[in-house]
């Protein structure tokens, strides 16, 4: 499994002048005070137990905020992963007489491995499957906990679980758990700003776009899932030490739902929300005891609230508060980059940048693309045109790897990319935009473009530090004329500007070949002119463009070379003016007499 530890915030490059640990000092001071309070204040057993439960549960819910909040994948088996950690510590410290720390680590690793395995087996499929598989996994784990008596003591559970020698008192142990909570909270808080975190958000917002921007979607999802599971395992291990007793019913499907609701209630997107949700869902049942005298009533209300929260507070309590706070925060205007964007497309191969040979894509009996050859020359604008349904977009999707070619070969700068997944093609130098704009809608313009700039193999960002990324992204945004609005969220931009941001995202990655899928669609005439100007400026830097569009004015003025498709076949190819006058092309567009 490749949960890149190098992606963790610990190595997050310092963006500002002061190092991260100085800027975040207030957080650590506050955390230290809370830990000290947990260690020194006199709680009675009841308060202690509530705090212990809230602390350990919060860590498990942090896991959900990673997988669900950041990466947009569902996990209905968090209680099972929680159980992995709890049983590892439980069985390890009692039956096997092992060291507590060893058990805790083993529990995390077991959960991590199980999470990664589960993710790898199903994350290629859609969300419903994942929901179903995690439920199945949860059920199987519960069955094993109950029935594998030789290992788990069955339904009796494991009692007299040990604690580490340093923290044998309940208060000391609580302080330790709070410290762990603070550390994990810090890491999860900063995860979104790391490369892995950005990848997760991109995958959540738009999987296809993430793929064509060089993000290994599958790996990202598996990583998110594994991190979630590992945090569940850690939380479970801490829980077991805290309560000294574990039994299967504490790790049932119902508990997984409780974790999920905690996450949703507080706000799935941030650790603060997770902590709020967890705290509330532990305290509310204590307050609402009177409702529980009728069996079912409390849970019925609980179910109702889940529906209402989803309906009215999709971002949870913290999301709600954060949105309100955002209104008060003044928008920071960014100053456009001073340097102009440098496009230095790689020049490894010969005169032909993209060579497509005998490409075919069949959907069942339908031959959407059939035996098409295209040769795109370096440094020019090449247009692919044809009437509706002629197979243009299908061709583009096969080129960028969203569809698998039925037959044929695609060479990019001499490299055979025919069987590569989208993110590898991007790494190989392909950039693209979409006809129906696919931006990461929860992010700012700058963040969108940063993800593009982060493409593996981008030589324009130096070692790939955060500052270089931001600089590159700012240059790209400035290049398309949106430098001063970099920090605004995508939703505040007009349709035409969103299109420009998508182009900037592709440009920031410094591609060898840029695929533009109907960039003029939906633009008004002024915007079309601006687009034309932009294309000229791009081409002027030597970047090769393959463009699909219906706008014949744009195509004929911008492109030197045109390939025409009809019914999935190439009917004409050559220098622009000649092709446009070709009788087959004329009849394809106007219908033959």
């Amino acid at each position, binding site marked *: 499994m490749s949960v890149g530890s190098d992606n963790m915030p610990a190595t997050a490059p310092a963006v500002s002048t002061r190092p991260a640990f100085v800027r975040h000092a207030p957080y650590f001071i506050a955390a230290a005070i809370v830990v000290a309070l947990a260690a020194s204040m006199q709680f009675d057993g009841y308060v202690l137990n509530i705090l212990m439960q809230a602390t350990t549960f919060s860590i498990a819910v942090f896991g959900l905020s990673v997988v669900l909040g950041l990466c947009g994948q569902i996990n209905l088996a968090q209680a099972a992963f929680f159980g992995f950690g709890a049983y590892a510590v439980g069985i390890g410290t009692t039956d096997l007489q092992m060291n507590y720390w060893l058990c805790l680590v083993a529990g995390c690793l077991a959960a991590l491995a199980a999470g990664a395995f589960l993710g790898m087996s199903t994350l290629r499929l859609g969300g419903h499957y994942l929901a179903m598989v995690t439920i199945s996994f949860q059920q199987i784990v519960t069955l094993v906990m109950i029935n594998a008596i030789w290992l788990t003591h*069955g339904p009796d559970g494991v009692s007299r679980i040990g604690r580490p020698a340093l923290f044998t008192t309940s208060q000391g142990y609580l302080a330790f758990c709070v410290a762990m909570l603070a550390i994990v909270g810090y890491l999860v808080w900063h995860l979104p700003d790391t490369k892995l975190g950005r990848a997760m958000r991109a995958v959540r917002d738009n999987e296809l776009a993430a793929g064509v921007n060089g993000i290994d979607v599958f790996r990202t999802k598996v990583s998110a899932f594994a991190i979630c599971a590992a945090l569940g395992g850690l939380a479970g291990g801490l829980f077991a030490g805290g309560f000294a007793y574990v039994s299967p019913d504490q790790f049932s499907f119902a508990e997984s739902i409780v974790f999920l609701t905690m996450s949703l209630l507080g706000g799935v997107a941030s650790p603060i929300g997770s902590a709020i949700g967890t705290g509330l869902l532990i305290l509310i049942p204590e307050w609402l005891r009177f409702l*529980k005298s009728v069996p079912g009533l409390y849970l019925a209300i609980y179910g109702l609230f889940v529906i209402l929260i989803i309906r*009215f507070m999709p971002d949870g309590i913290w999301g*709600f508060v954060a949105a309100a706070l955002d209104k008060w925060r003044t928008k920071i205007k960014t100053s456009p980059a001073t340097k102009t964007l440098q496009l230095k497309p790689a020049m490894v191969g010969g005169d032909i940048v993209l060579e497509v040979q005998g490409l075919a894509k069949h959907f069942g009996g339908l031959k959407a693309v059939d035996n098409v050859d295209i040769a795109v020359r370096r440094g020019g604008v090449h247009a692919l045109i044809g009437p509706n349904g002629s197979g243009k977009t299908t061709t583009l999707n096969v080129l960028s790897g969203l569809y698998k070619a039925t037959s044929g070969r695609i060479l990019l700068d001499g490299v055979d990319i025919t069987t590569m997944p989208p993110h590898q093609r991007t790494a190989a130098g392909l950039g693209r935009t979409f006809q129906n704009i696919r931006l990461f809608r929860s992010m700012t313009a700058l963040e969108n473009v940063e993800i593009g700039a982060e493409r593996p193999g981008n030589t324009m960002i130096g070692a790939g530090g955060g500052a270089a990324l931001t600089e590159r992204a700012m240059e790209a945004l400035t290049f398309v004329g949106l430098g001063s609005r970099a920090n605004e969220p995508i939703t505040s931009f007009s349709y035409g500007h969103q299109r420009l941001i998508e182009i900037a995202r592709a440009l920031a990655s410094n591609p060898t070949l840029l695929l533009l899928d109907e960039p003029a669609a939906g633009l008004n005439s002024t915007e079309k002119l601006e687009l034309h100007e932009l294309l000229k400026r791009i081409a002027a830097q030597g970047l090769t463009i393959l463009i699909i569009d219906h706008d014949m004015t744009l195509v004929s003025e911008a492109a030197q070379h045109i390939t025409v498709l009809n019914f999935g076949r190439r009917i004409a190819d050559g220098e622009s003016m000649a092709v446009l006058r070709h009788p087959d092309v004329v009849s394809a567009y106007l219908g033959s007499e």
Partner: protein
Amino acid sequence: MKLTRREFAAGIAAGLAAPTVVTSARAQSATIKIGMCAPVTGPAAESGGYAIKGAKLALEAVNKAGGILGKQAELIIEDDQTTNPGIVLAFSKLAAQTDIVAFLGSIRSTQVHAISPDVMKLGKPVMIGGTDPTLTHMGNQWLFRFRPNDSYSGRVIADYGVNVLGKKKWAVLHSTDAFGTAGGKALSSALEKLGAPSVLDQGYANQSQDFTPVVLAIKQSGADILGSYFTFENDLGIFARQLRQLGVNIPWVGSPSIVNITALKLAGPALYGTYGVADYAEESSEGSKAFGKAYRELAKVAPDNQSSWPYDAVTVLAAGINKAGTTDPVKVREAILSIKKFPGAEGEYNFDQNGDGLHGYNIVRNEKGTIVFDKHIEFND
């Protein structure tokens, strides 16, 4: 639904703020306090209500007879939510009140397991109703049991089947939860000691929808008697019907669930002629009859073991403290352990050094839907 986000948020805020009213004003009076964890909420809330009524009935009697150490006794009830984490919280809440001298735990074995470490730490007597034999055999000296444990139910089932019904080829069927596993184990080992080891030992998971494979296994094993530990009545009902449908009519001696009202309603004629063990049987002794009468008057429902064990627990605890003459936990413990031939609702209490008060069970019979007391089987070890 015309609810805006804002209104919804305001509603949540109001809902959260309201219940923060301080609940307990600790009355500092001259009473002896007994803590009780009971399922006031959750799946077992109904039986939790019975348990509380049973305990209160005993408390009334104790106070009428002069109280404990001359003071009136008081019951502090905390909700265990029918869950393990719930009882841990409830018990810790009670344990934090230093003036509570002793506690009533749970009838559920896993819940007792869950609080057991805390009980050890606290070092005060806790009366329990959970019947998992290991509870009083794992070095926790502060647990005192007021129901016969499952090793006795197993022994009674085995004894009755082998010695009274004269059957030696046993099929043992049990659920795979804590209760069923412990019971099945106890029955199998009792059968082995009687020289009639089971020919089939079969577990099943709770909430099974179908028992055909189990019934066919019993049929094939050639067993001539069946012993069972069912947790849920609907499983018992489905099994009983399929057993009869597939033509198995061997004698059947089951754990207490086989004679409970729900099971009788669900399974109907399929359970006619079966035997069950019951820790509480109304006609089994004078003490049982007396409790039954008093309980019926108070609760207006039939008495059962849910209410009888807390009744006995409070009565015996009061007697123990009075005998010790102090609330010092160690002395109270010794006093309870020295209690012999004490008549209670569940039977005659003779505490052993493990803290088990009862050592026998009643056998009852299903006579066309009515439960009839058959005999009491008691062991001395």
